[in-house]
């Protein structure tokens, strides 16, 4: 088995969560890479789909934004933002859409902050804001979230809820009026977290080779159940070859 980088493992771990036939909503960066990898490896019938309105893009090169001309190539339809968000709620297509998101902070229920650190009115750090993330997290029945495992990012309470997860636990989404469904996996640089079906709380599902569950807990601002965790299968030579040679030969997203 070849050596691999953390980022490569993250992309593959996310790609493995995508089911054949899913309509995959991708953001900028590693989520596009995961969707591309899934399409070339295990989910050939999946559809790459962007909030900008591009449907079933053929990515011959990695897009640098979800609006890139590269997402417009050889699509079924190039629509608009209004079309894209309707697709996530449409009664025929909506339940097939899977969303991939990232954020600066996450809490135990998968609520995400991509707006500010500190007080909203006097922020210590300002981020980009929702973009389409809050829309996706509101509408889509399954979301995957990319995070870095750090104490300041896995926090008991996020500074600002940009995108809704399970809100405050069982029934939380229903009480606020949100559709059913919500976050189902968090892919980090150390492992994979899932959400308990009953409590809606995050738990450790998998840890990467060489990383102990203890070390993962040390990098979180709250404690989670680790009793169900198993070691994640490292990427195969085939998975790595597709990722490196087909998806991102310039290493624009994978980096050095």
């Amino acid at each position, binding site marked *: 088995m070849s050596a691999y980088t953390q980022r490569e493992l993250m992309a593959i771990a996310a790609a493995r969560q995508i089911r054949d036939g899913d309509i995959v909503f991708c953001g900028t960066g590693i989520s596009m890479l995961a969707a591309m990898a899934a399409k070339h490896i295990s989910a050939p019938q999946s559809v790459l789909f962007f909030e900008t309105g591009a449907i079933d893009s053929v990515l011959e090169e990695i897009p640098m934004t979800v609006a890139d001309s590269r997402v417009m190539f050889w699509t079924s339809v190039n629509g608009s933002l209004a079309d894209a*968000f309707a697709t996530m709620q449409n009664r025929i297509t909506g339940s097939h859409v899977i969303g991939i998101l990232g954020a600066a902070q996450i809490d135990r229920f998968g609520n995400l902050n991509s707006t500010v650190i500190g007080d909203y*009115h006097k922020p210590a750090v300002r981020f*980009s804001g*929702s973009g389409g993330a809050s829309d996706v997290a509101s509408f889509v029945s399954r979301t995957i979230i990319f995070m870095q495992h750090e104490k300041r990012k896995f926090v008991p309470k996020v500074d600002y*809820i940009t995108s809704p997860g399970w809100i405050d636990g069982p029934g939380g989404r229903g009480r606020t009026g949100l559709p059913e469904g919500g976050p189902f996996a968090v892919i980090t640089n150390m492992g994979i977290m899932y959400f308990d079906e009953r409590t809606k709380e995050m738990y450790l599902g998998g840890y990467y080779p060489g990383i102990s569950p203890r070390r993962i807990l040390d990098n979180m601002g709250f404690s989670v159940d680790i009793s169900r965790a198993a070691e994640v299968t490292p990427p195969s030579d085939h998975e790595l070859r597709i990722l490196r040679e087909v998806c991102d030969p310039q290493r624009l997203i994978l980096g050095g």
Partner: protein
Amino acid sequence: MRIEKGRANKITNLAEAVNRYVFDGCHISIGGFTMVRNPMAAIYETIRQRIKNLHLYAHSNGQGVDELIGAGCVAKLEIAYGGNGRFASTCVRFRKAVEQGTLPVEDYTNYQMTLRFMAGAMGVPFLPTRSSLGTDIIDKWGFTEAMRKEDPKIPDQKLIVTDNPFNKSGTIPKVVLVPAINTDVAILHVQKADAQGTARIHGLTFSDVEQAKSARHVILTCEEIVSQDDLRADPDQNQIPFFYVDAVVPVPFGAYPTSCHRCYDYDPAYLNEYLKSAQDDTLFAAYLDKYVYGSRDHQAFLEQIGPDRINRLKADPRTGYAVGLDRR
């Protein structure tokens, strides 16, 4: 008012169009998305004319929004996303202005901003959605009540959560009402337009069409002016009817340094250099002096960049982008 000049020849130059329709304190939206098809030539002209106190609306415009903020043109911002794709996960001048407390921002989502432009285009006061229920987008307001009272163009409330009045089946209990946007002017860059202002956008339209229809005045910059017959021979491909449009300005490479589908790519070298300058106030002032104030017009700006660099961005006809462009 705009219907009077419905069929007129609206071709003009950029300095004239901006001078006429973009004014101090006006409510304005710009088309495009992140570093794609932003009306950059018109944005640079706005900066050159030193028009201030803009109330700017955008969903995910990166480069255009950031340059307007950096040049001190923007007093208030309503936005969903202040990022520039892989070139800036958060736009730097936007981030600095918000962190320094000099720029009041109202945060919405991309879909909400789209619906807001759509409501303006439709002439209704709001549209409903389920987006962002349970989040701080609803609970936290960037504009104070006083600011909202002061300007009649800003709605009294940011968003309103209400019971679904059609809730017979009980499946959708609540909705969020998003207020309409009715701007003074929208500026869009398109690939083709005729003299009357009928426009054709190639590739994704983002929310450009809704923006055009929710504005009192529309400035269209375009890669090329084509004949009315050219556009009308294939009208299914046109998106903006002429009677919304006030000014048509031919500006080749008018979206540069952002991209324009089937015409040219974004310029990675420019965007990376911009990102570096944006981090530092002195460097940023020098950037504006050199490229914006130091160029008489967009043509002079492009001459500073030089034909070699511009030519490398030209789109390949099969894909619509510059295949193999070094984008590091």
